[in-house]
């Protein structure tokens, strides 16, 4: 059983918690040892879990926390820029991140995945998909052959066909990235957008078909 602490107790931190918690429950139902001992969260706001049905505590603040033993960490942040900044800062302090992949996700065994990834229940990740470090696949459909760069985040009902999403991209709910497109690094695809052409780095696109805005 692996000791695990979740970094951040916001919405993505809670998603990460439920992935680990549900994986434990699934193991127990099968008569297996629970894989995770969830020690708690670290978060700069110590009351972030007030009112939530989560028993595990906030152990301390992120700014003051250092690894204590063999515990591993799960990244609970969704915004790409913040995720990268925090991941680099914490890894420099010796934090060791692991992937959290829901047993209720449909994930091909032959995907390539970096470290610190989160794949929530309801996601499908097809064959030969490549996920960089600290990617979040949150209730999304990633078709076989797609590539998702480090620190990128896909959200509910996003569909990425056989496309390439570069580093640090945020894809809003129900967006569709169609076959063959490349979404440039650090860009954003707004909710419900349909990307039919390559997206330049660093821009925001919106609409059907998606066009640059702002």
């Amino acid at each position, binding site marked *: 059983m692996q000791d695990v602490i979740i970094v951040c107790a916001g919405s993505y931190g809670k998603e990460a918690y439920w992935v680990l918690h549900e994986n434990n429950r699934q193991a127990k139902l099968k008569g297996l040892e629970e894989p995770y001992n969830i020690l708690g969260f670290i978060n700069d706001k110590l009351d972030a879990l007030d009112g939530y049905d989560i028993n595990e505590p906030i152990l301390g603040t992120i700014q003051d926390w250092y690894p204590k033993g063999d515990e591993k960490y799960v990244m609970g942040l969704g915004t790409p820029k913040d995720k990268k900044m925090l991941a680099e800062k914490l890894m420099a302090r010796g934090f060791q991140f692991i992937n959290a992949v829901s047993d209720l996700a*449909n994930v*091909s065994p*032959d995907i390539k995945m970096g470290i610190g990834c989160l794949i929530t229940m309801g996601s*499908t990740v*097809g*064959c*030969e998909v490549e996920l960089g470090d600290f990617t979040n696949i949150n209730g999304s*459909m990633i*078709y*076989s*052959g*797609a590539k998702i760069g480090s620190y990128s985040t896909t959200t509910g*009902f996003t*569909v990425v*066909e*056989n496309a390439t999403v570069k580093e640090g991209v945020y894809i809003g709910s*129900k967006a*569709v990235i*169609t*076959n063959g497109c490349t979404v440039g690094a650090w860009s954003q695809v707004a909710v*419900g*957008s*349909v990307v039919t052409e390559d997206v330049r780095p660093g821009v925001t696109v919106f609409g*059907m078909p998606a066009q640059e805005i702002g």
Partner: protein
Amino acid sequence: MKDLVIVCEDSFGLDVKMIAEGMDAYYVKNNRGHLFDIIGFICPENVKEKLQFKTLPFLSTIEDYQVSDNMVFAMGIVDPGRKEKYIRLLKEKNAEFVTLWAPWVLAPLTMKFKEGCIIAAHSIKENAEIGEFVTMFHSMAGGAKVGSFSSIMSYANVTTADIGEGVYIAPNCAVMENVVVGEKSVIFPNSVVVKNVKANTKVSGIPARKVKD
């Protein structure tokens, strides 16, 4: 146990492979033995140079492939027109197509799917009418009628619609109650179809409107 050949023109062939593996594993887990040995893929001549997979070997172009006994085919082409074209080509060589369904599909146990379907839909009700060679990939089919050769892609919801033959419904669409979508139409991604769509029409938007050529 039969040799399974996947027919594809892009990496959707790997998605079909994943469904086939899941179905085979389900049979093994329920002590019914292996269904298939997935031996590789065949593809159209015009894509063979750019289609390479690490986990699924290339066998031949569709045009050159020699069909043999103890071999079945799974149709991994989603474009309805090309799907039908290559099915007819392979049928001329006496190819037999198999229907694949993902183990998590919620469908009545009595439901019998017609030849060559790829069923990975989230729910299918007992009053659904599904034609031949229909692809339903992570979509909601409910009690819909879906014509042969049609493809309904991820998160599309067609639960009580009447979908004609050869229709392509892109990801995240919704086709509203009792709407009729004419044959060989295309519904673009994220569209919401609230009125009947004539045959051979492309529609897009919320609500979906005819797309100008």
